[in-house]
Every structure is written in structure tokens, then in C-alpha cells.
């Protein structure tokens, strides 16, 4: 045989960072001698979460990492000069202001270990770590007990009745197979929304702002599993009503709240006792100058917000520190950028939406802990006591009340009640509700591509066939949509979908809609005569 290139290979047993479902996956890093590494995925069939299956985001993970990672080889030999310089700048900025003028944000896009170290930094600075999804709770103390995972995915398969408030095909695709199994076993699946889902036995028309007290079909009992989600855009009133009506303590109905980020549940749990700010409060604080240093740990507020104007607000903060494992829009405007190793190279744990603690490991002899070490360096530089990785792991185990990480067992966690600031329970809409010049309501279907600002071939809107006839959209052509104030217009392809009239769905961020539900005007794109 002819001699050829020398290869070496690392395999990372990791978790897909796409959403909070927590799909297990192997990331294969192939290193041809003297050339850039090549990434591939392998389907992790022993994973208790997804049994090797992935959605269209997960399937494209190699591309996602290749396009967003920093030169990952640079982390293998420890922190370099560039990292240390950024760490010093970050520490100086944090030391130069009062505690109340700092906002630390980590929404759950990194490991528990890094989040815990970040909390430790927060303790040193006397400021909490904000997770950014807390605004949805009307009465956090009451609801958190139910929203932190109290039903496993396998329990879905054995449910007799399932009430769905999320579109699994789009938002949490791996739920689909659990629902398929449940249906095969005879479960009645009821979808409360505006689309007709094939998986549902019954689709109950439920508008985003509609009170569930007025939806007769919503009658949870001891045999019901209710699946909804909590994102930075969730309507808090809806969540409260689900919990109030289901009243799990009385009815024994089970609740599963899916989460948008890979470690939303873990971050939420570890930060549960802190008095957090909402994202709106942070933005307001920057605007009025009460927040002078914003430190985001793997949280891109620009990606997260539907309103692009947030970028201009962030530019106003005195020091924006961004520590990130991916190249994202917020990195571009950061005053201090601390680059860390890509997520798949991280060692540690994450907690998925069913509250399963999932370990991440690799075939490397020396695990890379760049992100963790960088936070520790900042802690030391601001005069705190950095904890070792091992001690941090122990602390996390004790927070979850377990002795060792076992991804095959979901730990029982008694969740104590705690407080955060109360916020409005109204769903934001970008334009006044009584805007006369609109003919449709535009609704986002949140999904991993959107949270991660990824190029997505699903750049189209969905609309009912009846509505298509009504507004005379031409087959094979496009539709023009503008926001109520008419300042922004976009031409988009459309897909006829079995759904409610007068609504438009999109899986992609659109410039004319800056809130989860927005009033818009849709009409056929004028046919321009060819010369």
C-alpha cells in the first residue's frame, strides 16, 4: 500500500448546543498532519435523550462549529498572552465600577462548571448572574417548582393524554419521536395553537394572547402531560395559567417546560437563589446609565432579541465584556472579547429540559478547560478565591443533590421558591394593537436556527390556503410584508399550511417583526413586467 498522510483523531462525547433538548452527539475531529482539522458528527446511539437521532440543526453541527469557532488549537496549550490581556482588561473594568453598576449574564449556553465559576465571580463582585428567561414568571416563587422539569421524555411516551403548546416539528424536533411513540401506544395528543399538526389527534384553535380559562378543551387531569416552553419571549400569563389550571399538586397533571438553550435548566437551577434582573431591566439600565459594565458569558443578546435596535443600546454601555466560544454578532461590538474553546471541546456537564444531568467528555488526554480557567483568572484578578475544577464539580453535584453524574437517572431536585423582579405579563407587540393598516398577525416559531442566528433554508412564511386566496397571492410568486408603521418591507416566499386564517408564521427572524407577535400587512409582490 502507498504511504499517505498521517492522521490523528479526537472524539468528543458532547451535547448539541442547538436547544435545551440535550441531544447527545459525538463530534469527530480529524487532524491530517499539517492541515486544518476536519469536523464530522457521529450519531450517539447510546444517548438516553435522543438515542442517536438529531434534528436538522444537529445534523449540521460540523458546519456550525467550523463557521463559528475560534482557532480551537490555540486553547490546547493553556491560556496565551492574548487571553491574559483580555482577562486583565475585563478585571480592570469590573474593579472600576460599583457592584450595582455591573450586569453579569449567562443564559445557559455553556457548562454548569463555567456557569458556577461565573456565579463565583458574581459573589466576589457582589452581583448576581442573570439568566434572562426569568422575566416570564408572574410569581416566580410559585412557578419555578413546576417549570424546572418534572417529567422525563420517556414519561411522555407513556402518557394517556398530551397537551401540546409548542410545535415540536419546528421548535423542539426531537420531541416528535416521543410523541409518535405515545400516539402509537394510544395517547390522545391535543395541540393548542393555530396550526394543524399531523401528530395531534385534535387541534384546538388557541391564540397566543388568549386566556386558557376560556379554552374549554384545556382540562388537564392526572393522566395529562402538558408540554410547553419557556424562552425569553414566552408569554408569562400563559405559563401562569397552565400551572394554575393544571394545578399539579391537586390534579397530578405533569408539566414539561422545554428550554431554548443547551443548559438553560442547569443555569436556571444554579442561579435560582439570586435576585436577578430581567433582560428588559438590563437594557433599561444601560440606557439610563445605571449599568456601566455588561459581562455576557456565551450569551448573545443581539441574537436573542427580536428587536435589532438592541445592538445600538449595547454599544452605549461603558464596557461590554464578552466571553464567547462562538463568533457571534455581540463579539463584534465587544470592548473586551475573551475567546474560549468551542462548546464540543468543553469538559463538564449540562442539564437538559427534563432535568437530566449530562456529562461531556473527550478522548483527549488533557481536557481543555480554557473557559473555566479564564473565569477563574478574572476572579483572582478582582481579588476573589478561584475554586478548582474538581471543587466546582463537587459543588454542582451538591446543588443537584447527587453524589455522581449518571445521565441515565434524572435526579430528584427539590426546588425552593425564590424571588425575582416582577415584570409585565403582557406579550410585547411591536406596533400598537389598533393599527388600522394591517391585515395579518405575524407569529414567530422559535427554533435553534433562530436562537443561533444561523443561515436557514426555511426563509419563508407560512400562511393558510384560504388566506392565500383572500389576499390573492399568486402561486410560485412571493408576498410583500410590511410592519404596521410601514417603515420596513420584505419580500418573502410563502408556503401554504393547514392553519388559522389571518395569521403568518415564520421560523426566521424578520426585520419587520420585532416582537413574538406583530401586526403586519401582507400583499402579493407586484408583478414587474419584463422589458
Amino acid at each position, binding site marked *: 500500500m*502507498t504511504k499517505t498522510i498521517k492522521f490523528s*483523531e479526537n472524539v468528543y462525547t458532547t451535547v448539541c448546543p442547538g436547544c435545551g433538548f440535550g441531544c447527545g452527539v459525538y463530534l469527530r475531529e480529524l487532524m491530517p498532519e499539517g492541515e486544518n482539522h476536519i469536523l464530522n458528527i457521529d450519531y450517539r*446511539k447510546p444517548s438516553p435523550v435522543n438515542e442517536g437521532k*438529531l434534528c436538522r440543526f444537529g445534523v449540521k453541527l460540523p458546519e456550525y462549529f467550523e463557521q463559528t469557532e475560534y482557532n480551537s488549537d490555540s486553547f490546547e496549550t493553556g491560556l496565551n498572552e492574548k487571553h491574559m490581556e483580555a482577562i486583565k482588561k475585563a478585571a480592570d473594568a469590573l474593579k472600576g465600577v460599583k457592584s450595582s453598576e455591573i450586569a453579569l449574564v449567562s443564559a445557559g449556553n455553556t457548562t454548569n462548571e463555567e456557569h458556577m465559576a461565573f456565579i463565583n465571580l458574581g459573589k466576589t463582585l457582589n452581583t448576581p448572574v442573570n439568566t434572562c428567561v426569568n422575566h416570564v414568571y408572574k410569581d416566580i416563587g410559585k412557578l419555578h417548582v413546576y417549570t424546572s422539569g418534572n417529567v422525563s421524555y420517556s414519561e411522555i411516551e407513556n402518557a394517556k393524554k398530551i397537551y401540546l403548546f409548542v410545535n415540536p416539528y419546528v421548535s423542539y424536533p426531537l420531541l*416528535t419521536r416521543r410523541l409518535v411513540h405515545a400516539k402509537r401506544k394510544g395517547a390522545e395528543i391535543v395541540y393548542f395553537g393555530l396550526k394543524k399538526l399531523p401528530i395531534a389527534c385534535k387541534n384546538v384553535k388557541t391564540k397566543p394572547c388568549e386566556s386558557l380559562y376560556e379554552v374549554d378543551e384545556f382540562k388537564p387531569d392526572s393522566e395529562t402531560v402538558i408540554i410547553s416552553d419557556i424562552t425569553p419571549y414566552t408569554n408569562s400569563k400563559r405559563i401562569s395559567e397552565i400551572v394554575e389550571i393544571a394545578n399539579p399538586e391537586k390534579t397530578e397533571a405533569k408539566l414539561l417546560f422545554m428550554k431554548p438553550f443547551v443548559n438553560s435548566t442547569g443555569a436556571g437551577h444554579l442561579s435560582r437563589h439570586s435576585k436577578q434582573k430581567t433582560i428588559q431591566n438590563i437594557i433599561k439600565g444601560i440606557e439610563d446609565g445605571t449599568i456601566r459594565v455588561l459581562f455576557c458569558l456565551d450569551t448573545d443578546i443581539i441574537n436573542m432579541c427580536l428587536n435589532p435596535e438592541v445592538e445600538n443600546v449595547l454599544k452605549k454601555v461603558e464596557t461590554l465584556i464578552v466571553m464567547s466560544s462562538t463568533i457571534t454578532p455581540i463579539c463584534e461590538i465587544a470592548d473586551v472579547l475573551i475567546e474560549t474553546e468551542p462548546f464540543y471541546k468543553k469538559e463538564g456537564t449540562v442539564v437538559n429540559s427534563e432535568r437530566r444531568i449530562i456529562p461531556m467528555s473527550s478522548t483527549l488526554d488533557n481536557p481543555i478547560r480554557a473557559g473555566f480557567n479564564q473565569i477563574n483568572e478574572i476572579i483572582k484578578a478582582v481579588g476573589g478565591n478561584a475554586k478548582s475544577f474538581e471543587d466546582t464539580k463537587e459543588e454542582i453535584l451538591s446543588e443537584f443533590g447527587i453524589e455522581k453524574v449518571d445521565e*441515565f437517572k434524572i435526579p430528584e431536585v427539590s426546588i425552593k421558591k425564590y424571588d425575582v423582579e416582577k415584570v409585565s405579563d403582557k406579550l410585547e407587540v411591536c406596533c400598537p394593537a389598533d393599527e388600522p393598516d394591517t391585515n395579518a398577525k405575524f407569529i414567530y416559531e422559535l427554533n435553534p436556527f433562530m436562537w443561533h442566528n444561523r443561515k436557514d433554508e426555511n426563509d419563508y412564511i407560512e400562511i393558510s390556503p384560504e388566506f392565500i386566496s383572500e389576499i390573492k397571492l399568486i402561486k410560485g410568486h412571493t408576498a410583500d410584508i410590511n410592519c404596521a408603521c410601514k417603515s420596513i418591507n420584505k419580500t418573502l416566499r410563502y*408556503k401554504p399550511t393547514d392553519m388559522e386564517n389571518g395569521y403568518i408564521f415564520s421560523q426566521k427572524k424578520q426585520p419587520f417583526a420585532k416582537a413574538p407577535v406583530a401586526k403586519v400587512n401582507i400583499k402579493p409582490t407586484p408583478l414587474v413586467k419584463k422589458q
Partner: protein
Amino acid sequence: MTKVKVGDRLIGWSTNEEVRSNGGSGGLVTAVFAAALEKGLVDNVVVLEKANQFEAVPIITDSVEDVFNSAGSMHMLISNQTKYLQQFKNEASIALAVKPCDMRGIREQQKRNTIDSDKIFTVGLNCGGTMAPFKIREVVESVYEVDPDQVKGEEIEKGKLIIETFDGEHHSHSIDDLEVDDHGRRENCRYCTVKIATNSDLACGNWGVIGELSGRGTYVEVMTEKGAEFLQNAIDMKFAEVVEAPEKGTEIRGKVNGVMLKMAANTHKEVFKPIEGDKLEDLRKELENCIHCGACKEVCPVCACGVDAKCNKYYDPTDDYDISLYHLIRFLHLSDSCIGCGQCTDVCPADIPLTRLYRRFANPVQEELDYMPGMDDRTPPFFLTKLEELE
């Protein structure tokens, strides 16, 4: 003994006692790989890095020690090695153990020029079937009533799945019984008709190893010149020993294979019962939960179309057809080449029984064309350019 040659049927084993006892049946395969590395016949060997009895990942190595440590059979490693090999883009020389369906995928890719046969050496392992790790984990807990973390090893013998625990106990259940509840082998394995990888360089297995060599030797059939060279090398380097296979052993091997094929034919009949009623509606229902993730194409060992594949080109997410063109094109396009390896079903996030659907299209086509992909040296019938003509 005279030099090893194509057509030889031998029983072999590793001369290293530890490898011999850790090996699936005598450690011959490990010995052949280790000797090939040592001699420089290949630069790399694919070994399995085991996390536990339920989990392992293939990984390349150039270390003989790693090869020694990888002896043993994993019945729960269910991925196909074709895609794994393709990553190397023919820039590495690699030796690897393959199941018959792995080899069928590799052979089909060789016809498509994505895998260079000069760069690889394959040892085929007989295969009675593989099992999904998450299902077996569940079964170990619920049927065997054993803590999965206490499992030290697993073995398939005489139609039984035997679980060995760290306390030395053996727990066994009939695979037939497990399969009643869909808990045994994967569905496609149950009707697979290639149990001996005669399409590889060396075809190895324990069927036909009898008497005192039972469990301590591998029956090996030398399929190619390269196979003969590699086996001879292991003998010359004193990594392996071989004896001629006794006639009775060969007879038993043939008989067991015959029984397995008969069982597969019965399952085939059952799984592919004619669909009663509206066939198109049946297909529509099966596919209605598809989320268009494209994983079935990603893992397909015979697909070589790349991003500009017809199935993607003709699929438009804004279409509202009852059945997406993506699937319809794939069903037709693969009907001459589908090897029924089950990868597409394994990765489908909507649990669509894809392999069954592909086979519904492929069975009559392949029968009509008398073509068995991966086992047949002919160019796939649907190809315009015929390899045979080029030669």
C-alpha cells in the same frame, strides 16, 4: 503449513494469550491487524474506544497496543463504517473490521470512486445482527433485572443474548423472545441475507469452530490476494497461528448460515407483507412526521451525491405536496443500490421506518435486475457509465 492462498478455509487465533481470551473468538482479527501495523502494511487501524459495554466509538490508531486493547466483539455498535472511512478521502491507508453491510457500503462506494480499494484492508466479521444500545440497556434493566452499570460483557451464543456481570454471573435470554417486543436485533438485521462477509479480504467468524478450539479460534475464509498476504504476514510475524478448518466445521458453518438465512427469509415475508388498501396513503402516513433534517441521506452508506443531490434539488420547503419529493426521489434513486443496512431508520428523529420503505422500492427492483448491491461486482444498474465497459 504451506503459504496462505485465496480460497483457504482456516481456523486461526492470536498467539498472545490475553488477546486470545479477550477476542471475540480467539483474537485472530486483532493479531492480523497488529502484525500489519508492525510490518507497515497499513499506517492505521480502526479500533473501538469503549466507554462501557453499551458504548464505543471507532477511532484510528497507529499503535499496536491500542489494537491489542480493542479485541472483542461489540454487538451494539450499529453505525456503518462506510461514512467513517470516507472522511479520510483516500489519504490514509487503513485496516478495519467490518460487518457484511459495512463492506457492502464500502464496495458500492468503491464503484463510485469515493473509496480506493488500494488504501484499505478489510476483515469481515460474520454477523447475525446488531442491537440498538439504548434498547438493550432498557432490556438489561427490565427483562434481565440487572443494573446496566454492572455489565462486564455481552455475547451472542446459540440464539441467546448472554450478559456477563462484574460478579462473574451470566444472565441469558432467548433473542427470539426479546424480539417479540422489538427488543432484540434491529429490524433490518432480522431480514438481512448476508451473514458472512465474503465481500471482504478475510471473512471471519465463530461458526464452524468446533471441539477444543471452540471459543478460542476464528474460522477464516481467505477471499482476496490481499487477505492472503495479511494473514500470511501475521503468521510469519508469529502474531497468529492457523490450522486447516476441519470439514465438519465447514459443514456446520454452512448449515448455521443456512438456518439464519431461512429465518431471515421468514422475517422478510412478514415485514414486507403486501400493503392492503391505498399504498400511496400508507406512504403518506408513514412520512407525515418528517422534519426534513436530511439525516437519512447523511448516513446512507451508498449515497454519493453530495449537496447537489437530486433529492435536495427537487425538494422545496415551500411545497405543500402530500409526500415530499425529497423522499420520493430517494426511494427511486436508491432502489438499485440500497443495501438495507438500517442506518436511515436508526437516525430518523421522527422514527419513520425508513429502511422498510426503501426496501419496499428496492426489493422488486433488485430482484428484477438480479443485482445485489455490495455483493455484486457489476456497476449499479442505474448508472449510465458502466464500469465493465470502461474496463
